[in-house]
């Protein structure tokens, strides 16, 4: 029995090492370049522009899919932001907490010939520069990003129901974000598209991506997971107000 526990403990340690090892290969850093507040009739829109940087921090280059969405030119070449959250420390508390979060809408399954063509092009022994970009160890890949947050100004009917939209955000803004210290923003990006994998009834293991990851080992590490940025300091006092707005 003791032996089994020991083996289990070793497995857990190894698993932890694997995860942290993978995380150390790539970092996502961000810097806010502008914040704009737009006062609307029923809401306050906060638009944040950022300079984001993927930084290869491991010993091997990191390979990223070039986001060559076959149909939607608005998405093409753009990393897809999937999730954002604002952290802060309230005067009454000793620890930071999540004050706001937002899940973005995602594209639906298209499974068109365009996607098949991309898969065919990717499924090659040689790295296809039309589909994959490489970040050498110690180098960065920069991109511009924009995130918007909407805060409702008043409670609508049923606003105590947290699942009905994002009703609590007005309260969060007025009562929490306003008084919180050390505000920071953390954003998540999707790097590998679900459209490149089959959507099975079991948890998606990204078999196509894993196959390429193994095949292209000599070129670097193909990044498949969503990536969460490092916390980005957020100073709302630097915001430009588009119309009269009281934060």
């Amino acid at each position: 029995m003791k032996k089994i526990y020991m083996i289990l403990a070793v497995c857990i340690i190894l698993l932890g090492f694997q995860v942290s090892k993978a995380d150390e290969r790539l970092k996502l850093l961000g810097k806010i370049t502008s914040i704009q507040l737009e006062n609307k009739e029923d809401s306050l829109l906060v638009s944040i522009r950022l300079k984001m940087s993927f930084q290869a921090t491991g010993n091997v280059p990191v390979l990223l899919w070039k986001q060559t969405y076959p149909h939607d030119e608005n998405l093409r070449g753009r990393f897809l932001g999937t999730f954002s959250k604002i952290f802060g420390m309230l005067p009454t508390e000793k620890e930071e907490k999540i004050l706001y979060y937002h899940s973005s809408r995602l594209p639906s399954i298209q499974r068109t010939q365009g996607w098949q063509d991309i898969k065919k092009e990717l499924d090659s022994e040689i790295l296809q520069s039309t589909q994959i970009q490489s970040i050498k160890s110690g180098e960065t890949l920069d991109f511009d990003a924009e995130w918007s947050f909407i805060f409702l100004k008043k409670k609508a009917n049923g606003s105590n129901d947290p699942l009905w939209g994002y009703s609590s955000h007005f309260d969060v803004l007025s009562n929490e974000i306003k008084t919180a210290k050390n505000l920071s923003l953390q954003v998540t990006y999707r790097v590998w598209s679900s459209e490149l994998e089959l959507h099975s009834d079991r948890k998606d293991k990204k078999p196509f991506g894993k196959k390429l990851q193994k095949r292209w080992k000599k070129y670097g590490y193909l990044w498949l997971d969503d990536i969460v940025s490092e916390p980005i300091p957020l100073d709302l006092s630097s915001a430009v107000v588009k119309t009269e707005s009281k934060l």
Partner: protein
Amino acid sequence: MRPSGSDTFRQDYAYDKLNRISTVNEYQVTNGTPAELARQLGLKGNEAEKFAKNFTEKGLSDGVELAKLGGDTGRIYGIVQDKLSDQRKEDIKGKGDNPYDGILADCSSTSANLNLPIAGANGKNWSVLVMDVFIENNLTSKSEGDLRIGDVVRYGLDETNSKGEITSRNVPKHFTTFIFMSDDNVPQVFSRSGVGGRFETGSASGFAGKFGNDVDYGNIRGIGRDSTGYYGRR
């Protein structure tokens, strides 16, 4: 994504040890009469009468769990509750993950399976394009006032290139499922927003368009010459 409120339909929750909402326990009926409830679910004629009769005969009243009503209403609300509960559990973790479901994998497979249990849609065999074909073969266009629980709402967009020229017209981008008409007659829908996306509810129009850096779902729009973008079983 805020829907109008409804006095008739309310959500109730279960709480975890830290007093955080952990589960969407049930959709409750509060003030509605059986006939009013049937109307807001979009049931008509014999179906509405049968629903109201069943409701009354079983001695149901305020606080009834819609998932336990049987028929399409019970089936659809059962799924809606399960999925919203799963979503809430992920939200509490705060990592930005959404529940995994290979059957209800995206908006198209979710709305197909909710509309027709034998649709057989899943993440492997379905897509927004397949959903358009499914609609053309199985459903018929209808008006907003005729919406019935389980009906499909379609969202389409003209795709453009970097010069702003239209490259493809009325491309299907999103689908939602009608679940009830609010007291102020605003259609309320359930949706999975994208592949592996959020399970959420809101007004049908709340899912149209683009917000911030989000993906653009376009507008509520029918296939070809279909005028409304609302579809129900033939």
